[in-house]
């Protein structure tokens, strides 16, 4: 199977929308959505149920007409999906296949629709998604997880430049979810872009390097995952004697940090110490900074009994974002 790639503007985003809106009756499901997914990233698309994620994905794929606004996928306008879908693999909602046909035959149908006559890579695709030994069985005999895997195999047909997946881990067991993570990463390692909607925030945090968060049809965050997560990571310090806390506070202040009291502890936003980068990216710098603080405290006759990095979870930031958006 050959690679199908639309004529994307070099260096341009894989997906961009401007004022994208979908109204059903008087209700806006997607409301003036401006978003951008850079080329070559694994981007997560998250938001509460009914936030407009699936409708947005449908608009990107030409299944649903926008009521207003515009957008481009791989540099091509949303109004001309025929110019870019050949380079896009997609799984939207639950997989839709013919129940009486085998997995292999269903993939052959998708390949035919994509204009791919050489079906020699279908067995390899089935193997890649863990269905190598079930390819000849009827789709109706598949479990939910197997159906999902077949949907992913269908999305991979034609080696697309962009993969758009809507809740791909639905129905997958833990090992399936792990395989999905590996699959998305390997796909991205080949230089391709992935745009994936998911409710599994822990997975999103692990696999996505770019996030678009929407609520009630509007974007409430867009940017690197690390940027969102780093803003909630903190260093927690506690001295042996609570009476030493003001001196410790002053010591940290003297280093340009802004500690905040939290009971008998001090809390410093980690982003102040890592130049806004997420922990794994600047671990050496952080270790060095922690050692410096510890040495300075000891020199000032303050004994630290706690020097802890509190890792932020995407879930916490997401909840805060959505709660903020709801106000």
């Amino acid at each position, binding site marked *: 199977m050959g690679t199908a790639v639309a004529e994307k503007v070099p260096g341009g985003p894989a997906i961009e929308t401007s004022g994208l809106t979908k109204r059903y009756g008087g209700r806006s499901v997607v409301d003036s959505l401006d978003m951008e997914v850079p080329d070559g990233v694994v981007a997560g698309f998250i938001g509460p149920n009914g936030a407009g994620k699936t409708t947005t994905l*449908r608009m990107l794929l030409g299944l649903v007409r926008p009521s207003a606004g515009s957008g481009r996928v791989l540099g091509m306008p949303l109004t001309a999906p025929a110019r870019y879908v050949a380079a*896009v693999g997609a799984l939207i909602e639950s997989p*839709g*296949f013919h129940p009486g046909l085998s997995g292999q*035959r269903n993939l052959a149908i998708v390949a035919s629709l994509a204009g791919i006559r050489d079906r020699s890579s279908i067995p390899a695709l089935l193997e890649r998604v863990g269905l190598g030994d079930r390819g000849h069985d009827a789709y109706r005999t598949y479990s939910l997880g197997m159906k999902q895997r077949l*949907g992913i195999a*269908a999305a991979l047909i034609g080696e697309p430049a962009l993969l758009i997946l809507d809740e791909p881990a639905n129905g997958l067991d833990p090992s399936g979810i792990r395989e999905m993570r590996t699959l998305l990463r390997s796909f991205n390692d080949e230089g391709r872009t992935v745009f994936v909607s998911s409710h599994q925030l822990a997975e999103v945090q692990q696999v996505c390097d770019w996030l678009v968060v929407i609520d009630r049809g509007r974007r409430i965050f867009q940017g690197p995952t690390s940027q969102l997560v780093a803003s909630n990571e903190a260093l927690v310090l506690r001295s042996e004697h609570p009476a030493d806390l003001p001196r410790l506070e002053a010591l940290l202040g003297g280093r340009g940090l802004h500690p905040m009291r939290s009971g008998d502890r001090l809390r410093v936003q980690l982003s102040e110490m890592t130049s806004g980068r997420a922990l794994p990216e600047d671990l050496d710098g952080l270790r060095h900074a922690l050692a410096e603080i510890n040495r300075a405290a000891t020199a000032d006759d303050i004994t630290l009994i706690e020097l802890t990095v509190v890792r932020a979870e995407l879930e916490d930031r997401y909840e805060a974002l959505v709660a903020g958006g709801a106000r």
Partner: protein
Amino acid sequence: MIRSFRAEVLKLRRRSVLWAAGVILPGFALLATILGFINAKDTAASGTSVVAGTNTTLKQLAQAGGLTQGFSNAATFVGIIVFVLFLTSMTGEYGQGTLRVALTRQPRRGGMLAGKLFALLGLTAAALLGAEVVSAVASVLLAHVRDVSTADWFTGTGLSHAAADYGNALLSAALFGAAGTALGVLLRSTMLALAVGLAWIGPLEHIVQLSWSDAGRWFPGLLFDAVDLGGSDVTSYSRALMLSLAFASVLLVASGISFVRRDVTS
């Protein structure tokens, strides 16, 4: 369109469909042929038969059109099968979510609909051809049993009759197929579309026909049947064909616009 056609052929190349096309339609034709020969009288009975082909005489069977008389009689029932086939083929795409998958690969919706229809029509044409061949072979065998002369069957006129029977059956099937497609696309639900479609072309048209004889001149299902039979008591073949084509065109344009423009959300 070619992609969609190929994909549809892949779907149709399954045992259940091939069995239905290769056995049911020829089976109908065989049954109609056997019954036609068995029930054929020496002379015509008085009165009009309600069911096509049940008041045939041996003399009629010996005429040029006798070779495919059984096929022609059976074809009047084919329309409903084709109607259901085309209708469920469309609603199934919505119901199973396969249209959503297909459109993410082939967004040219007009071409997709056309390719699908041509594939279904191709299957119908092949099944009807098989049915006619089975009917013709059975007619030859039964002619010997009932001592019916086959001299006129294999003349130019006789073969023209056979070709016309096939052409009319295919035309009628295509018209029913167009109606099934339109209902399937417009209503999207198998149950709803079947209920509306079968109620209309089944009991409704025929009940109205009982009290209004001109119904056969205007109602689509009855006109499609008239095309298959080469005309009817109330309308000529050419009129039935013209009106039927007009009906089918309107239905196909309406369903085409709906298919191309409506959002696919299922």
